[in-house]
Each structure stands twice: as C-alpha cells, then as structure tokens.
C-alpha cells in the first residue's frame, strides 16, 4: 500500500509507514497494523481523558463529607460512566489494541496480522461501541454502576441502560476479533526459526490474553443482551418477581468480568518482561515459567468468579471453593514478580523512564495482588465487601499495574513507533508524579475501606474527611502526571530528537527494523537463530556514554 513518491521527496526521510501516504483515506481505510494501532491510540486517549474527567468530578465531590456538589443520582451516573469508559473503552483494549497491534507482527517477523481487514473492522466496531456509550452519556447517563446488577438495571433504573449496554455489547466484538486475529497470527505467521519458546514474553502474554478475549467476552455479550431484553420485554429471566434469578446474572457477569481483569493485566505483564530484561541488560530469569504462568493465569482466571459473590447468598461451599481457587491465582502472579526481581538482581540497571514505570508496576502490582488475597479470604471479604478497600485494591492492579505498564510500554516503544525521542527529564518527572500521586490517591482508600467507608456514596461521616482530602490531593497530582505525557509526547512527534533504530540497545526483531518501520515491516523475512533476550551477547546502546547514564550494579 505504500507509494513513496512526493512524500519522500518532501521530507528526505526514508520511506516508512507514516510518510508512505498522507491522505485521510489512507488512515481511515488503512490495513497496516501499525496505523490501526495508532487509530486505537487516538480513540483510547479520548476515552481515557473522558473517564479521567469523571474521576476528577468524583474526587471533587468527596472533598467534603456533605453531598454538596452533586446530587446522589448525578453522583451515581458519574462513577458509572467513569467505570464504563475506563474498563470497556480504555483498560480492556489498551495494551493489546495499541502496542499489541503495532508490535506483535514485528516481534514475530510477520508483515501484518493474519486478517488485516478484520483488524480495521475491529477498530470501527470499537469506535461505534464507544459512540453508543457516548450517546448514553449525553442523553442523560447510566446509574447502575459498571456492573449492571439486576434487577436494578433490568427493571428499576430510569437511565439509559440499553444504549450503554449496546455500546458495551458492540465493543465486545472488537475485543473478540482482536483475540481471534492474534491467535491465528501467533500460530501461523511466526518467522522461520521462531519456535514457541523463542517468542518474546510480550507475545506469550498476548496469546494468553487472546484466549480470554475469545472465550470470555461472548459470555458478557449474551448477558448484556439478556439485560436489554429484560428491559424491553420484561421476560423475567433476572426478575425475582417473575421467577427469575438475579444471582444468575452475577454469575454470568463475573464469569467474564473476572477473567477480564486478566485481559487488563496480562498484556501489561508482557510489556514489563520486555522492559525489565532490556534495562537490566540481562537474559530474563525463568523465561519458560513466566510464559507458562501467563497461560496458568488465563486458565485459573476462569475458575474464580464466585469471589465477587461471597455476600450474594451463594452456597457457602461454593464460597470456600472459590476462595481457595482465587488464592491459587496468586501463585503464577507471584512467579512473575519473583522472576522480574531475579532478573534485576546483578543486572546493569538503567533508570530510564520505561524502567521507572516498570519498577512502579512491580511494587504497586504486588500491593494490589496481596490485597487480592485479603479479599479472597471469605471472612475478611465479608468485612470489607463494597467498601473503599475494594476500590483501592482494584485501582492498585488496574492503574498501578496496567496503566503503569501501558505508559512504560508507550515510552519504551515510542522511539520505534515514531522515530523520535521524548524529553527524558520531563518524562522522569511525570513518572515520579504519577507514582506519588497514585499512592496518595489510593493508599488512603485502603484505610477508609478498612474503617468501613462504603463505595458509591456521595456523602460520608465526618471522621473520614482527612483521608478523603489526602486522596483528592493525590488525584490532582496524578491528573497532572497524566497530562504531562500527553503534552510532551505530542511535542516530541515534531521536535523530538531522532531516535535511531535501537535507542535502548534492545534485543528482539522489532528493534532490528528501521524507526519508524517501513509499511511492510521487513524487506526480507528475518530468520531467527536464538532465543529472546540474548542480552549477554548484545552491546549496550552506542549512544550511552558512562557519564550521562546512571549505570548501577546491584
């Protein structure tokens, strides 16, 4: 699809996927996985900003104990829209749709994903789903919480449940199609010599994620359809007044929505594995077991949904089983954390921005994961169920984990995607601000929850105010921290220093290509002769002189 003509003459840059064509059509009808990744980046940034604005309003309301800024109904809509946009339109697609789309083919030495048209279609599906949900928001919002619990959502709620549900239903198919595309690509399009156990861990993580996307998402799709049908026709499937069982909804919902948590974290873990190895300049420790732990998480993730329902009245024996199974998930998760730390041990660590995010990820994910074990314990969960403890826990995993990994990955791969370096000092400041702001926002919420402050209320007793003020203060720092990269990354597109093909001295096929890569990725299909992460044979980046770089031997 690349016709380098006038474009190359004008810029004098070598032809690449960005300057191959300039027309609007060449973007909106592109079949190039790299351009589709950037389309996703634009959509995701929009929805992330929107979700973030709702978070700002929530934190403003919670500055004071009285419900003085918003009425309770408005507040219900605010946290619902925050949850829906962040979960379904940012976290779920985030790394797979942007970095996965862009780098999966490059990492396995392929020219594109297996089904390029399907890939473009999935972006359009995602956008249409997003627009439906936007419509629900503009028309008056939804107040059910992102979990759509019945029978409130199916019978009693007077908000735009159907439009929002339809938006989520539609966008689910974008997730499914991305999963199908990745699975077929990883199975059939690896370069010669790239055996399964030579694949980068990023690819393994995306493979595990794709399995969940394909096997989990359809269940929520049909569940949402049933909720919409309940609202439209009053069939009674989830309505106890007609013999329906609202708990069945919770089972179906969490059967997807717990594994979905792993859609939201596994790709992040893949990114972390890449960065840890690169910035420790070491072969990753325990490659095989990290790869297998991704699959283990994907499989175990389907067996633990009942831990969301300990107080729903489900059988106590089911509760015990779900509790034990949930704790099992800690094993593969801990395996990853231990292997990353073992990789750091005696590595030549460089504290560039991606590494700062990675270290943040490891610490915050550990806190998020360990509090997950608290919640998997039946007795503790009954105490903290539906309190801010839960809110803090999943934000440690989702924001402290996935958003950190997403930003780390974005900084790591930015020079490859655009051929430009971002301003390093500013980026480090932003990374530290995000880390500090994040902890200040969410650590007080652990305390609040443990003291008994319930989630989803716009007013609270006065003794909780100090911690809430701290949390809101942290959120302002966090917000500024997120605003910085949006500014300087865009700035770097035009003014950033040229990056060269491999600024980090990273291993991996994606770094052997030109920056930005040419439209069809490789002039010749590469032949792979060694495993991933052969950092002991790879020289550190030529640009790095010892004085400038803080090289640390632990």
């Amino acid at each position, binding site marked *: 699809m690349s016709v380098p003509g006038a474009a190359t003459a004008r810029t004098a840059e070598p032809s690449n996927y960005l300057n191959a064509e300039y027309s609007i059509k060449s973007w909106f009808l592109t*079949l190039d996985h790299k351009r589709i990744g950037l389309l996703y980046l634009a959509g995701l940034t929009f929805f992330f900003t929107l979700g973030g604005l709702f978070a700002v309003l929530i934190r403003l309301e919670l500055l004071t104990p009285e419900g003085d800024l918003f009425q309770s109904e408005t507040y219900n809509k605010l946290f619902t829209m925050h949850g829906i946009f962040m979960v379904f339109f940012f976290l779920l697609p985030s790394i797979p749709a942007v970095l996965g789309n862009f780098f999966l083919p490059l990492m396995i030495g*392929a*020219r*594109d*994903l*297996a*089904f*390029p*048209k*399907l890939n473009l279609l999935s972006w359009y599906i995602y956008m249409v789903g997003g627009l439906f949900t936007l419509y629900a928001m503009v028309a008056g919002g939804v107040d059910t919480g992102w979990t759509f619990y019945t029978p409130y959502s199916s019978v009693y709620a007077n908000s735009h449940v159907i439009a929002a549900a339809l938006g989520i239903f539609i966008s689910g198919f974008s997730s*499914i199609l991305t*999963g*199908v*595309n990745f*699975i*077929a*690509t990883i*199975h*059939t*399009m690896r370069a010669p010599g790239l055996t399964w156990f030579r694949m980068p861990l990023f690819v393994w993580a995306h493979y595990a994620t794709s399995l969940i996307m*394909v*096997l*989990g*998402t*359809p*269940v929520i*799709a*049909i*569940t949402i*359809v*049933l909720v919409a*049908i309940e609202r*439209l*026709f*009053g*069939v*009674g*499937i989830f309505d106890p007044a*007609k*013999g*329906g*069982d609202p708990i*069945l909804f919770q089972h*179906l919902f969490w*059967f997807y929505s717990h594994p979905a948590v792993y859609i939201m974290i596994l790709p992040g873990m893949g990114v972390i594995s890449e960065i840890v190895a690169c910035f420790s300049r070491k072969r990753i420790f325990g490659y095989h077991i990290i790869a297998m732990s991704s699959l283990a998480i994907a499989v175990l993730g389907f067996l633990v949904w009942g831990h969301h329902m300990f107080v729903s009245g489900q059988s106590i024996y089911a509760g015990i089983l779900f509790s034990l199974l949930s704790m099992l998930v800690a094993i593969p998760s801990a395996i990853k954390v231990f292997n990353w730390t073992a990789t750091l041990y005696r590595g030549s660590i460089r504290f560039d921005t991606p590494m700062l995010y990675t270290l943040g990820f490891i610490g915050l994910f550990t806190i998020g994961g360990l509090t997950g074990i608290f919640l998997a314990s039946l007795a503790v969960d009954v105490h903290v169920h539906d309190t801010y403890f839960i809110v803090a826990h999943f934000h440690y995993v989702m924001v402290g984990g996935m958003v950190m990994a997403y930003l780390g990955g974005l900084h790591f791969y930015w020079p490859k995607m655009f051929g430009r370096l971002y301003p390093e000092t500013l980026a480090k400041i932003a990374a530290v601000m995000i880390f500090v702001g994040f902890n200040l926002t969410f650590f007080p919420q652990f305390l609040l929850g443990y003291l008994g402050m319930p989630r989803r209320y716009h007013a609270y007793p006065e003794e909780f105010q100090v911690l809430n003020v701290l949390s809101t203060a942290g959120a302002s720092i966090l917000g500024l921290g997120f605003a910085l990269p949006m500014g300087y990354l865009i700035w770097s597109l035009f003014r950033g220093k040229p990056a060269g093909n491999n600024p980090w001295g990273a291993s991996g096929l994606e770094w052997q290509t030109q920056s930005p890569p040419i439209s*069809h990725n490789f002039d010749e*299909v590469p032949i792979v002769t060694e495993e991933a992460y052969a950092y002991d044979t790879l020289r550190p980046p030529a640009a790095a002189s010892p004085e400038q770089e803080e090289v640390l031997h632990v």
Partner: protein
Amino acid sequence: MSDATTSGRLAHHFESLEQQHESALLGMWAFLAQEVMFFGGLFTCYVVYRNLYHDAFVEGSHHLDVFLGTVNTAVLIGSSLTIALGVRSAQLGRPRATAGFIGATIALALVFFGIKSVEYWAKYEHGLIPGLAWHPEPGASPQLGIFFGLYFVMTGMHALHMLIGLGLMVVVGWRALRGRYGPDNFIGVEVLGLYWHFVDLVWIFLFPLLYLLGRHAH
C-alpha cells in the same frame, strides 16, 4: 476473515497459499470457540431454569409444534449436506457446481425461515410472546414466561446467526460463480462451510432441549 479467505489470491502478508489457508482455518475455529461460549451462556440459563421450574418447562414444550420443529431439523441437516457438497465442488474446481450447492443451501435456509415464521406467528396468536403478546390461558404455570423468554432468545439468536450466514453465502456464491476458487484455493468456501455447520449444530441442541425434553411426561 474475508481478506485472507475470499480474495482468491495470495495476500501480500502471507508467504504461501498454505499459510494463508491455515490462518483462515484457525481463525474460523477460534471464532467458533467464541460462538460456543456465546450460546453457552444461554444454555446455562436454560439448565438453571429447567432445574428450578421443571413443570413450567414441560408445559412450555407442549406448546411447541414438534412436527414443524422436526421438519426444520431435517431442512437444516439437508443444508449442511449441500454446503458440504459445495466445499467438495470447490476443491474439485467446479465453480458452477459450487455456486449451485451454495444456492441450494440458501434455498433450504429460506425454507427454515419460512417454517420458523409460521411457528412464531402461531405463538403470537396464542399470546405466548412475553412482552409483546402475553396472555397465556388461565392456570398456566407462572414461570411459563421464562420458558418462552428463553425460547425466543435462543431461537432468535440462532436465526440471527443464520441470517449472517445467508449474507456470507450470497457473497461467496457470487465469487464462486466468478471463478474465484480453485483446487488450491477454496478456503473461502471451506470457512463458510464450517460456520454453517456450527449454526446447524446449535439447532441440533436447541431442538431436543426446547421441543422434545419432557414430552413423554404427557
């Protein structure tokens, strides 16, 4: 899946036709796994409520027309045969036969829709559509609505999948007529066949669950 499967040529990002074929096939199987989970959610609801309200479900089955259901089952199995013959013809490089068999499959699918509409209409007349026309005879079990709710969602979702299949068959049939498939390149027809067999298979489960189970208790 359309780009890799129906273009009739080697797409630029594949190394060989075999690789392209393998990708498309795997992609369709992965998609069908997704479909299994989609209908799996519905079958779960069915199992749960059948357990809870056995009598209402037996009663519901008696309102369904077993004769029409049986005919439709036969029609769908026939359509599986014709689409399989279509795949075979494509492999043998007979474009006209391929298009013919796809046309026959379309015709059988339309017969199915015809019979299904007759059934739906009868339910409308008897007041057995929850939310639209719901006035069951006095003495009907209170959870009959759940049975018919599930009946319409399950058969409706199945019909929706058939409609999508019909659309695909029109495209693939047209391409077959234009000679886009040959002995080394018939993946478009093969993938369509897989999809259609899956849709038939769903019906093979729906038919006994909705129409037959519990009838002996009469």
